[in-house]
């Protein structure tokens, strides 16, 4: 009950260190985080105070031998049943939010296939547009805001992790099978993403960006980029104007990506 109330009023609570979530799925996860954090504070705080109390209250004051009692059935039942009830409450909240986060719409607005490889990302759009990044340049996944985007994810080689911190979400890109999820990005903007699953030597440098634009701009971008890539058939995945190669000598280095959109696959209208 308390947890449900917490979930409802979640927006007014502190973030407890997590991102609020810039997708509708991420916001659900964020509210669950708030609930769990408060539950953790209450339970953890209670046990912490109890230990501290015992340590201070029962420090040795004499050489007397204390009572040698070993069982107290009522207490034991209480501290077995209460955690079970707590766990059931946490589980119900988990299932509710989990269903929101992993739900897939039957008719998403657009679909994008994301391929991970050592050490970069490739984004394939429905109309044939391909954007390929590499260790030395972070590619940008352009998506429409306030629309359902279906992401199909897999890997060309080893395991990778598709992780956008501000979306409160990550998913393995694995060789051998597809995995998919929906995201509804609520606000336009550029969000940094990074590989989270160890994938070899340059795992640390496997960045990408997600750029959310209004759906009109998104359609325009898809068309112009497609036209460019058709006009340059030998450079599939290569970029039209507005490319930032971002290569710094032999040793790959990458310092941040706020404001650095990397390979957008083409200039965005309004850029």
């Amino acid at each position, binding site marked *: 009950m308390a947890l449900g109330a917490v979930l409802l009023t979640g927006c007014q609570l502190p973030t407890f260190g997590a991102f609020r979530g810039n997708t509708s799925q991420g916001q659900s996860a964020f509210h669950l985080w708030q609930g769990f954090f408060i539950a953790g504070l209450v339970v953890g705080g209670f046990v912490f105070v109890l230990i501290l109390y015992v340590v201070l209250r029962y420090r040795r004051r004499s050489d007397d031998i204390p009572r040698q009692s070993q069982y107290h059935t009522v207490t034991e039942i209480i501290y077995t049943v209460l955690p079970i009830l707590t766990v059931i409450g946490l589980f119900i909240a988990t299932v509710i939010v989990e269903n929101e986060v992993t739900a897939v719409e039957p008719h998403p607005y657009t679909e994008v296939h994301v391929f991970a490889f050592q050490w970069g990302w490739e984004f394939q759009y429905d109309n044939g547009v391909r954007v390929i990044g590499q260790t030395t340049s972070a590619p940008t996944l352009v998506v429409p805001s306030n629309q359902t985007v279906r992401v199909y994810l897999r890997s060309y080689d*080893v395991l990778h992790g598709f992780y956008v911190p501000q979306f409160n979400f990550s998913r393995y890109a694995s060789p051998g099978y597809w995995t998919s999820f929906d995201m509804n990005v609520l606000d336009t903007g550029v969000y940094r993403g990074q590989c989270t699953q160890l994938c070899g030597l340059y795992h640390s440098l496997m960045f990408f960006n997600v750029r959310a634009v209004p759906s009109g701009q998104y359609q325009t971008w898809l068309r112009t980029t497609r036209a460019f890539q058709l006009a340059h058939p030998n450079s599939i995945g290569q970029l039209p104007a507005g490319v930032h190669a971002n290569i710094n000598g032999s040793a790959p280095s990458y310092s941040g990506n706020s404001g650095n959109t990397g390979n957008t696959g083409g200039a965005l209208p309004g850029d």
Partner: protein
Amino acid sequence: MTDVIEPTATQLDVQPRGPDGHEPHGAHEDHGPTGILKWLTSTDHKVIGLSYMITSIVIFYLSGIMAMFLRLQLASPHSSLLSFSQYNSLFTMHGALMLYLFAGPFAFGGLANYIVPLQVGAPDMAFPRLNALSYWLYLTGSITMLMGFFVAGGAAQFGWVFYAPLSSATYSPGAGPDVFLMGIALTGFSAIFTGVNLCGTIFYLRAPGMTMFRMPIFTWNMLVTAILILIAFPVLTAAVVMLFCDRHFGTHIYTAVGCHFVNGLPMHSCGSPLLFQNLFWFFGHPEVYILALPFFGIVTEILPVFSRRPVFGYKGMVFATMAIAALSTGVWAHHMFTTGAVLLPFFSFLSLLIAVPTGIKFFNWIGTMWHGQLSFKTPMLFSLGFLFAFLMGGVTGIMLASPPIDFFTHDTYFVVAHFHQVLFGTAVFAGFAGVYYWYPKMFGRMLRDGLGKAHFWLTFIGFWITFTPQYIVGLLGMPRRVASYPSNLGWQSYNIVSTVGAFMIASGFAVLLYNFYISWRKPIPAGDNPWDGHTLEWFTTSPPPHHNYTHLPPIRSERPTWDYNHPEHLTLPHGRGAHTNGHNGKNGKNGKGGNGKKAEVGV
């Protein structure tokens, strides 16, 4: 009745039984070779146990030094201290050494080997030669794994979990990964043999009167751990063998070779990288409890002794341990929530459910101290440190058991902080509580309490300084296993604090080394029972003689030494009751009942 009982009146004469059926000799008689030859050839569980502990503590220090390099690297965003491949090797070996070669072998190879036969009143382990084989396999495996640093291409770089297909010959060529896998197979067999040995010892070599429900909790936990080892390690060994076949014999068990990308259509005749994760974590999650239960046991030995109380809710404690073990075999896929290929609610619920028996243990520990007379000697301080550390690690563990939260914390520093708090809480705080607690028994000399307290406070404060910032930086999105990170995201300050804390911990362990040194150079005799211990091992001499006991006290509860020394303060019967003077009339030869409750009263 506070009269001192004449030892001869109550002692139950027990002829030590030779484990192989041969007639034991006099207990104080020295057997066989001495010096280095003794350490090389002994089948005595105490010598093997010490060998295990010394080896694993050396590995702990090695691995700790690696951790210092990792922390130094992360203190600045683009450090050039280590190359990417060096960094990847170091965190791989740091994790592998700590998990495969320190925490487990220290607990079930070292402490359990030494303590369990003493606690159940046995002269040795059930299979002494198998026990020696376990140790030599462990040592060989450890050296094999460390050899990775000296082969061409360097040590393995795929993380301690060696996920396929990163660990395949394609993506991790060279001998480094091979010796890594060999090391795991060898130490895996060592663990399996020790598991067999512990089960045999506990089931068959208990002294008369030592019924199952009179066994100390440490022994109980080691029994459950041994069973978990027998469930989990064969799966790991099988997974390693299959990976080795993939690497060298052309099989494609874990590789997605043969898979084709045709417009995103599913492909045929593929190996399954996901299979590796399932197999690995079917070992890996029981392994987490293989690394936790022994240390729970240590704490459950220490808290009663330094509170002068019996374990509160003894039977609940035993059942909680069994419940944790049973649940631990059904939660492996909570490491795989983000694969998108597991049934989330099932694994989430079972994972959350582990909080219940763990909570019971916490309340039992608190109940043990309740109304006690707490003395804060070093072992007690480390045990309390464990309680606080494990509490934090446990609470964040519950958060991670919820898939939507795991989605954004998985593989970030949040998880790094979580499992370090859990494992540091158990293997380090509880583990070194055990070292301080049993060192007097093993060597007949004390560790300095003042130095021990300095060690504790440096470690305890350093612990929080190290790992708390890692939670925060993890929530900000810092992934684990990165050798560099963007400089403009505000992560560096947290990493610097974490590095400072790590060096504080290291300084604590320098103090421990000095403590060992000074106890070796200027020994303070410990006597047989310096802590007023409860369990059987405190009844014999320090260090114990060759076959452990020449005689035993009557065993009528789970703390025979306490009953012997405090016959007027026996454990009260179930339920309420004022101070009663239990009689010490019967000498406990009627140790046949499975239900020890009536006998515990001692009427």
